[in-house]
């Protein structure tokens, strides 16, 4: 699953990138909702949000972007990743409802852990809404066994498996030391597992595909955007080449999710 910060490097080129990602065979795309203080992200994705926010961001522009995707790809399902305050400001129920109208099938909120999620679902009365849109949970290398059981018991959509301690855009990637956690998750739930954080080469992608049900590529995509800011027409070309390279050697079923 590719990740793209909405509006990076600008709204027009962002839509063109979506076309490339869809045509590369992505089953779904994770769209990033920009935020001023993205504490779970490394330098590359921090800069991508800064680029979008420098163009005077509004929620209207974001929804217009989603509507542009829907127009070009009417049945293509999306996921939206955003920090808690954006959801809180607009109201969780309101934003979830609105996202649903743009074929968004799930949301990822990196600064809302399981306990806060449960509290919010209760306080904001979101149970019904969440039958149509999933709120994705995280499993990380630090997740304790008792937390893992709780999280798996209510997981929906997929589980976001954070491959390393730290933030997005890690330079090293290996799931092998974490196989026991993946095994524990499999025992508790049939919900698919997607690996993220640090996947940037075909080798990483192969490893992730062999141990999980798919993987998320974000920082690598935004590096390519960043490297080509002065010649934006090249971004889509370079991305196409990179994605082909990244997905080489993975059977199609395995990158269905990817």
């Amino acid at each position, binding site marked *: 699953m590719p990740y793209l910060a909405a509006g990076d490097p600008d709204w027009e080129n962002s839509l063109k990138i979506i076309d490339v990602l869809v045509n590369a065979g992505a089953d779904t795309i994770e769209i990033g909702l920009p935020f*001023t203080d993205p504490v779970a992200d490394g330098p590359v994705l921090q800069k991508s949000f800064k680029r979008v926010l420098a163009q005077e961001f509004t929620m209207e522009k974001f929804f217009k972007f989603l509507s542009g995707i829907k127009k070009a790809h009417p049945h293509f399902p999306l996921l939206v990743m955003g920090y808690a305050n954006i959801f809180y*400001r607009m109201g969780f129920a309101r934003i979830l409802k609105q996202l649903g109208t743009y074929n968004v099938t799930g949301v990822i909120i990196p600064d809302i852990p399981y306990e806060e999620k449960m509290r919010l679902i209760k306080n904001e009365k979101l149970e019904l809404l969440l039958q149509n849109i999933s709120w994705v949970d995280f499993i*990380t290398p630090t997740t304790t066994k008792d937390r893992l059981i709780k999280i798996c018991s209510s997981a929906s959509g997929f589980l976001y498996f954070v491959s390393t301690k730290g933030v997005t855009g890690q330079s090293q990637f290996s799931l092998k030391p974490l196989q026991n956690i993946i095994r524990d998750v499999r025992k508790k739930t049939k919900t698919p597992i997607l690996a993220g954080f640090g996947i940037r080469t075909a080798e990483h992608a192969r490893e992730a595909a062999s141990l999980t049900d798919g993987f998320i590529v974000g920082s690598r995509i935004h590096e390519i955007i960043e490297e080509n800011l002065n010649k934006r027409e090249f971004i889509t070309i370079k991305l196409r080449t990179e994605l082909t390279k990244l997905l080489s050697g993975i059977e199609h079923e395995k990158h269905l999710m990817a």
Partner: protein
Amino acid sequence: MNPDQLGYYGDYGGRFVSELLMPALIELESAYGKLVKNKEFLKEYRDSLRDFAGRPTGLFWAKNLSEKWNAKIYLKREDLLHTGAHKINNTLGQTILAKWMGKTRVIAETGAGQHGVATATTCARYKIPCTIYMGEEDLRRQALNGFRMKLLGAEVVGVGGKKGTLRDAVSESLRDWAKNIDNTHYVLGSVVGPHPFPMIVREFQSVIGRESRMQILEHEKRLPDAVFACVGGGSNAMGIFYGFLDDENVKLVGVEAAGHGLNTNLHSAKLSKGMPGIFQGSLSYVLQDNSGMISDVHSISAGLDYPGVGPEHAYLKDTKRAHYESVTDKEALDAFQELSETEGIIPALESSHAIASTKKWIKKYNKSGSSPLVIINLSGRGDKDVAEVQRLLDL
């Protein structure tokens, strides 16, 4: 009050962090809960507060200022502590906590550098390597504090690009912590961030309030009419308020930075002008725009230059137990000079906000025909600000 099981004070607080950090927060809460009942831990903390930091601090009757302003004014002298501000109450507590928890590395954020210097100081004392994150702009404005931290053996890392300030330093500390969670303790510097930090920092700062209450009863045989403290994240205010929270007749006033004025965008008065939001780990008042983006803020004082505030302050505001006022850069600068000339005490620019607000309040109070008894928390000394003030006055 103590927060509920999820770390909420009424509607505010909680733990809005990535799943990576949750186990560490739970571990910290449990370790803290055990250690505050451990006599040896408490003895180590209290002894170090006394012998290393210099507690208790005096409650000083500011006679000249009292005469001039027609009130009886006491200053709680946190400015006399080692490293020059109340920050060390917390860094000593948390550094000893880190040591008892077996952590071998400490990280901290800092704005003006006061919390960073205090952390570097206590880490030197307890032989724990530490890394301090500081915004690049702050590092330039407070270059001397950057050097002080290095002198104390800390690694100092500039963050956030050229415009980097305290909020960037907090974000970068949270990122570092997520990466090095096994061996590292994050010494958060104020009553902000995810639970249990607001509670732990408040408990370590509450010594200010406990001492102040005893001291004012000794001096005056009665409680004050009001207590004033400046609010950035809110730790010195929370510390002194805590001594008087149950004394309903004592008015508690937190003073925010109005910067160039509350009608401009250049202030950092989140309790006066912000809205509830989720920022850097907790739900509290935040300065933000309609999309939920966190605003750029301003204050003459780097220690107040932060868009968020501790969740317990949000609770005290909504329940009306505490009141929140604000003063401009100009008013704070005037108070800075006035206290220096009148009492021979150069206050920190942060604390100058509390002094300026007290002056305005006394004027109103005097109209009723009586003069009040007031305590101002003099949270830090102004040596660090002298160069900046000289620059501003020369303009």
